[in-house]
């Protein structure tokens, strides 16, 4: 705009405004799909390295099925991260919840409690446990204002310990068919694990994108004080978010148990690192308020594809981990170079 064409107050930027809606602000999609170039690159590399990579069987049964449980926990963690918090204890819920359910059902001879709970009663107790865990985490964080990292770390250690105590370190197997169904059922030739992941992901995406509560979580994570000043019930939402996270993680644990047809005392151990990696690579900010479920999905897929390629490739076993780290580092840099380098406004 030049000085020769004076404009009236209120209408000064017609020209700019016109382009606005469609072009500039597509940046939200741009940000959600930021990983697509990296994923595409990974798929091309995979296809070159191994003829099996691009088969439906490999993509469905190896990449997607493996990513399902991880992906669901990532959904749970992403909701919590977007809300401005942290939950390390999700990985221990993945272990403890199914361990408790199975332990309640199994006879003492198989390492269970011998109390003969029905499957549904056991599941009810399991979800109750998750709710209690979420309530404790949420209350300590929201009401006592304790640091979420340290609260959920303590909770993680406690629950991992409970899993160990309950099972006596043993793997429980011989599960009732209801549990196994979660691992082996197929619909239209595709594993139920993929369907469930898709379902939960879509539900979470719609919820976070379009439900008032989802938007409140974004606001809370972006600026807790401003959210509170806008009348958002931050305490209640914080507790709710931890409870929801725990319930989803418990469900993911159940799915994992279905997949390996047993519960091990170490189920879930170390999972949280991968969960954070997928979420953060997928654009979820550790500082809250930023990121989307689609982005998180991209993060999960990228990690799944890289893992798959590494197993398909001929990398010597002892160097696989190093190569994995190198590839992630490479993907980060590639994505930086491919993406838009917007810096935040500072003053």
């Amino acid at each position, binding site marked *: *705009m*030049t*000085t020769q064409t*004076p*404009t*009236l*107050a*209120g209408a*000064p*930027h017609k020209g*700019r*405004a016109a*382009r*606005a*809606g469609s*072009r*500039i*602000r597509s*940046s*939200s999609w741009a940000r959600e799909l930021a990983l697509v170039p990296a994923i595409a690159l990974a798929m091309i590399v995979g296809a070159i390295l191994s003829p099996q990579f691009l088969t439906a069987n490999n993509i469905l049964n190896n990449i997607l099925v493996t990513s399902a449980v991880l992906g669901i926990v990532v959904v749970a963690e992403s909701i919590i991260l977007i809300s401005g918090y942290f939950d390390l204890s999700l990985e221990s819920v993945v272990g403890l919840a199914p361990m408790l359910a199975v332990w309640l059902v199994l006879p003492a001879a198989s390492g269970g409690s011998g109390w003969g709970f029905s499957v549904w009663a056991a599941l009810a107790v399991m979800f109750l446990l998750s709710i209690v865990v979420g309530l404790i985490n949420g209350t300590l964080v929201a009401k006592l204002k304790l640091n979420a990292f340290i609260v959920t770390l303590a909770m993680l250690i406690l629950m991992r310990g409970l899993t160990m105590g309950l099972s006596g370190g043993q793997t429980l197997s011989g599960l009732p068919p209801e549990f196994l169904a979660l691992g082996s059922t197929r619909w239209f030739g595709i594993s139920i694990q993929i369907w469930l992941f898709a379902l939960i992901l879509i539900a979470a995406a*719609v919820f976070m994108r*379009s*439900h*008032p509560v989802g*938007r*409140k979580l*974004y*606001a809370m994570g*972006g*600026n807790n*004080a*401003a*959210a*509170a*000043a*806008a*009348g*958002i*019930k931050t305490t209640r939402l914080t507790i709710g978010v931890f409870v929801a996270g725990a319930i989803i993680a418990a469900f993911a644990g159940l799915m994992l148990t279905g997949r390996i047809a047993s519960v091990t005392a170490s189920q879930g151990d170390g999972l949280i690192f991968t969960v954070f990696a997928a979420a953060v690579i997928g654009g979820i900010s550790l500082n809250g*308020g*930023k990121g989307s479920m689609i982005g998180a999905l991209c993060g999960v897929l990228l990690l799944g594809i890289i893992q798959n390629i590494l197993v398909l490739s001929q990398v010597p076993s002892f160097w696989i981990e190093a190569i994995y780290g190198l590839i992630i580092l490479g993907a980060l840099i590639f994505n930086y170079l491919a993406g838009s380098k*917007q810096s*935040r*406004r*500072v*003053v």
Partner: protein
Amino acid sequence: MVTSEPTHAIEIRGLQKAFGFTQALAGTDLLVRPGESRALLGRNGAGKSTLIAMLTGLVKPDAGIIRIQGADGQVHEGSGADSIACVYQKSTLVNDLTVAENISLGAYPRKKWGAVDWQGIRSTAVEQLTEWGYGHIADRPVGDLEPLEKKIVEICRALSRGPRILLLDEPTAGLDEGGSHELFAQINSLRQRGVTVIYVSHHLEEIFKVCDSVTILRDGKDVLTAPTSELTVDKIVNVMAGVTDEEASAQSRAKEEQARLVQRREPGEVVLEVTNASVGHRVLGVDLLVRAGECVGLTGLDGAGHIQLAQAIAGQLRLDGGTMVHKGKPLGTGNEIDAINAGVGFVPEDRHVNGYVPEMSVEENATLSIVDRLRSAGGLINAKKRRRLFNELSGTWAIKCDGPTQAVEELSGGNQQKVVLARALASRPDTLVLVHPTAGVDMTAKESIYESLQSLRDSGKSLLIVSADDNDLAICDRVVVMYKGTIHAELAAGYEEWELVGAVQGAEEAAA
């Protein structure tokens, strides 16, 4: 480095900067002689803050030349010379550190062995702060300060660096009258010592007190540079807005016409009744009434308690004593949600702290307090409804942005403020409590904000405007002045300026 004799303290030519599709600066020139005090004016989003940030090196230009005359008299190519000190529009303090350490931030006095000299840090701070009457806050963490105190710390930091060039981006936004006086006194004494000053403000009357000359930016270009003596406020406003004087007078005639047509309703029944309210040692038993269709101003010096009273009404602070009744129902205390549900809207004092969610879109921020009302049948948010509502709000408040989905943090300061105003209004409150509602908003936009507020009042809403800005108070039906925690005076509309000044200072005659 250039060998020729430097004739400009600041020489900017053809400066360009784009953020995405926004051209913040589009070939700006700026030449400032050493010792000159230059006002940099323009509407919200004209590019003033961007230019300032480029001078200090925080933002890198896309194209153009910046030359700055350093402390050694040499001219430095590019930005960020040591001889520059700056007060930015947005706070650049570290909340977790003390005031004293913030003032010496990055330029610590040292003792033997290179250790930080804490006593030196403290005495520098106390010395600077005492000039402002704030010597006692040196040891407090900045996070505990009130916005006004923060602003003073910020100014003290810039002054403590002994700059050759001082950049001030809306330094008086949030300052009270005493603070502004002190600032002008210090600027004038620096001018006498040959310090070059760039001064950004939307309070145009200040320009005439501290500036030799004026540069006006419009849409990222400098459209006028002239000595202050050749300009008037009206002229400046018209150039800023890009209208000719004839157009402007035609517009104002039209407005006056309109104003005459609108019938002022008499204030109705009492909507908000505060009785014997106390907050800490700040508010000591205050009674306040606000009626429907009434606009009440509330003012005072720093520490007078007017801001705390407003915060208490909005549920941000807990009352230690007294009661509040809103529309006949008791108002919960210390609970912002109750306040909103009861129909009290609030514009907070510091927009950066609890005014907006930085990375969220303009549209969502503006409608944040009413997300629940944007549901469609399925329980999900109806995006069309939200867009319609936002368009309404953005029209009312003249928010300049790239589009409804731009992040608020990318907006210029004044436009961020308008988003906060829009948000407070979105919930259609019966009572609006506004603290410093026009902080950082340009003159033209201010006028339209006043119009909006007046039409709200005329539609029967109650307004409580808490401000130190004369213009804000001028639209009020009456102004309540607090002094040391109690109500000291009440002035009906049409008061003389000296009456207000006197009352604010606690002068007895005004109270009579």
